[in-house]
């Protein structure tokens, strides 16, 4: 057992536990907190895989901004818990069955096609550094990058318009 493997297994365990915690929490606030934990573990995985910049983005954007937004909305709506409802009770077992099916399929694929999963050797020091990513973003992916800025602008305007209260009504 290498230290790397130990770290991986520990973090994987935490990560899965957090995901399951999110799935089963009754209170939406807890779900959100579990999800943050999951995101942080995933960020550490990124670091292990050489994605320094991505890891930082993950922490800042996902764990920071996005989840804070979730929490805000949950608090704002006061909708931590929902009442009882039996509308689609039959879907739960079916869903679990299907989930297991999916896992089975994926596991089968992992097991049967090792050729696509060969690990790479050592990587240069600069791999995944902000410098490299930046070079790629501003050269090869300049247009998509700019498009994302417009996308964000549009999303912002959309969000404002959707949540704006009609003055005349209230």
């Amino acid at each position, binding site marked *: 057992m290498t230290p790397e493997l130990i770290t991986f297994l520990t973090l994987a365990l935490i990560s899965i536990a957090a995901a399951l915690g999110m799935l089963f929490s009754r209170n939406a606030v807890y779900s959100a907190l579990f999800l943050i934990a999951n995101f942080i573990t995933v960020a550490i995985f990124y670091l292990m895989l050489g994605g320094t910049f991505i890891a930082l983005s993950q922490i800042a954007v996902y764990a920071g901004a996005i989840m804070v937004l979730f929490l805000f909305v949950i608090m704002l709506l006061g909708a931590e818990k929902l009442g009882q409802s039996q*509308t*689609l009770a039959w*879907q739960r077992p*079916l*869903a679990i069955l*299907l989930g297991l*099916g*999916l896992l089975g*399929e*994926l596991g*089968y*694929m992992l097991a*049967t096609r090792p050729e696509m999963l060969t690990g790479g050797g050592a990587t240069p020091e600069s791999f995944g550094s902000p410098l490299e990513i930046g070079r790629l973003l501003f050269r090869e992916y300049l247009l998509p990058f700019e498009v994302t800025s417009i996308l964000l602008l549009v999303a912002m305007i959309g969000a404002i318009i959707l949540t704006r209260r009609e003055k005349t009504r209230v």
Partner: protein
Amino acid sequence: MILSEIATSGPNFFYLAPWLVFIPLIGMLTNLLIGKRLGEKAIGGIASTASGLTFVVAVLLALSLRAYPEGTTVPFADWITIGELQLRWAFRVDTLSTTMMLVVSGVGTLIHIYAIGYMHEDVRYKNDPGRFRRFFVYLNLFIAAMMILVSGDNYLMLFVGWEGVGLCSFLLIGFWYEMDTLGRPSTANAMAAKKAFVANRVGDFGFLLAVLTMFWVFKSVQFTDVFASAQQIAESNPGAILAITLFMLLGVAGKSAQIPLYVWLPDAMAGPTPVSALIHAATMVTAGVYLVARTAPLYVLVPQAQATVALVGGLTALFAATIAVGQYDIKKVLAYSTISQLGFMVAAVGMGAFVAGMFHLITHAFFKALLFLSAGSVILGVERGHHHAAHHDGHEDDHAETFDPGDMRNMGGMRKTMPVTFWLYLIGALALAGIFPLAGFWSKDEILAEATALNFTVYILLAIAAFFTAFYMGRQIWMVFFGKPRHEAAAHAEESPPVMTIPLMVLAALSLLGGALNLPGVETLAHWIERTFETFGVKLHPAEFNLNVAITSTVLALVAIFLSWLLYGRKPLTDGQPDPLKRILGPLFTGMENKWWIDELYWAVILNPYIALARFFADVIDWRFWHDWFHDTVIAGTYQWLSKTALNVWADQRGIDAFANGLGNTTKALAQRLRGLQTGFVRNYALSVFIGVIVILGYLILQ
């Protein structure tokens, strides 16, 4: 082609020719634009000055012609230039045109001055003093148009003036457009104006055809070009010249009020009296005479045309004279007399006695203007008397209701109330009647003398007409000035102010002495005008004084006057008494009184049918048949039938619809079953997506 370039020595004012038109136009624009702020005196002054200056220019041109008698053309600007059509604004100055300029601007100026006094009162009687300015604007415009007419160097420019004066005539006849001649609200004056314009337009139509023919025959409508090749064309294409001259006769008939288009002139008396004098007696109506004289080089080539023109003139002279006998309105008598005298002139220029015609044109301008203006003075005098009487008697309610100040039956004995006017009128009447030695005697006699030599039929017609002339003038004098007043208005009539009578005196002097212009043996005018005709190669018939003719016509005139004395002078008319002539002539007199029903005839034969035809075209053919029936019923209806019945019911509903409906119904049934899938629960949808993912993954694995 310019006939002769402007010479280099001697007094030469030819370059002033364009100012003949510009001066009156400047006067007109001044009054039009700033006249609102000026008083009546200033307005009248400006207009009269403009007219007077025009006269001065005309005199200067005449002086220049003494040095250069062959005349000249003064080009001003290009007008219409297309291919062979080369028209320009250019002024023809020669003895013939200058004679007309002198008459028009000379008489015109006197009438301008007279009008200052006349219109001052007229606009007040008719309660619209603001209209004073309008009158002088029109009058100056008229002078300008008339100058274009007489000074143009081509037929089309002449036509511009020709229609221009027609327009002024229209405007001035309709000057009091909201009333009739008695001042009652009516469209009568407006109708008279329209009648004049339309009758003139008929003549213009003839003129236009003449010009069109001329262009394609001569390839030019310029006087000098046309006359230069006239001889040559007459040999190769005599029919064309006959056509041109006859078409032109129609124009002459319109403008100079000859049969068959004379009917507008009597109605034109609806205009204020100075207008009747200036336009409808002295100047505009003589344009036709000028036109024939101008076109002499063509007329002399076609004797048939000459004979026709002379005959039309002679018949008109006689016909109008008979009608004049039966009229009661002082101006109507003069109007028919004008038509008759125009007939004399047209007959004269028609048969080739161009100098005699022009001579009579000039003298007629003097004495007819005098007569009309004096008649205006009489009418205003009666009007004043009427006001006076109405105020005295205090019955103002019947004032201006049906009282006609121009009706001779309301007059009588005015020799005493209006002495100056009486004497002036008498001079005019004697001149018109052709009594020795007044102007009318010389000119009329010259025509008659020429007629005996050139066309005896016409001589007979004219001689009878001359007899009638003396008779109706005698009748008028006796009725108006002698006897006792038949209406209190005539009894209280007042003399006119000097601003009116002084121009009259000048005209009277001219009527007395005008004969001196062309005395037999001296023949100043003949030698003057001859030069122009010689330039164009027209040999004038040498005028001879014919003593027999002179004595015959004088005797006829005296007999006529004596007859009129017998009927009207010896035993003056009393109020309400029918005309004594009626007893003698019976139905003939009724015919004269009713103008031989020519107006009614025209209405029945031309106007009413045209109106009916126009209505028929408009209402039945164009609207009900073509617009409503053909378009809306046939085209639109067929389309609607096609779309609604044929296509909609048969093809569409029973064919295509049935198929389409079946298709729709099947789809609907199918949809009814499929809609169950759409539960509306988002998680259901997610589930189906998830199933899809698993199935696809499974497929990929098993592949």
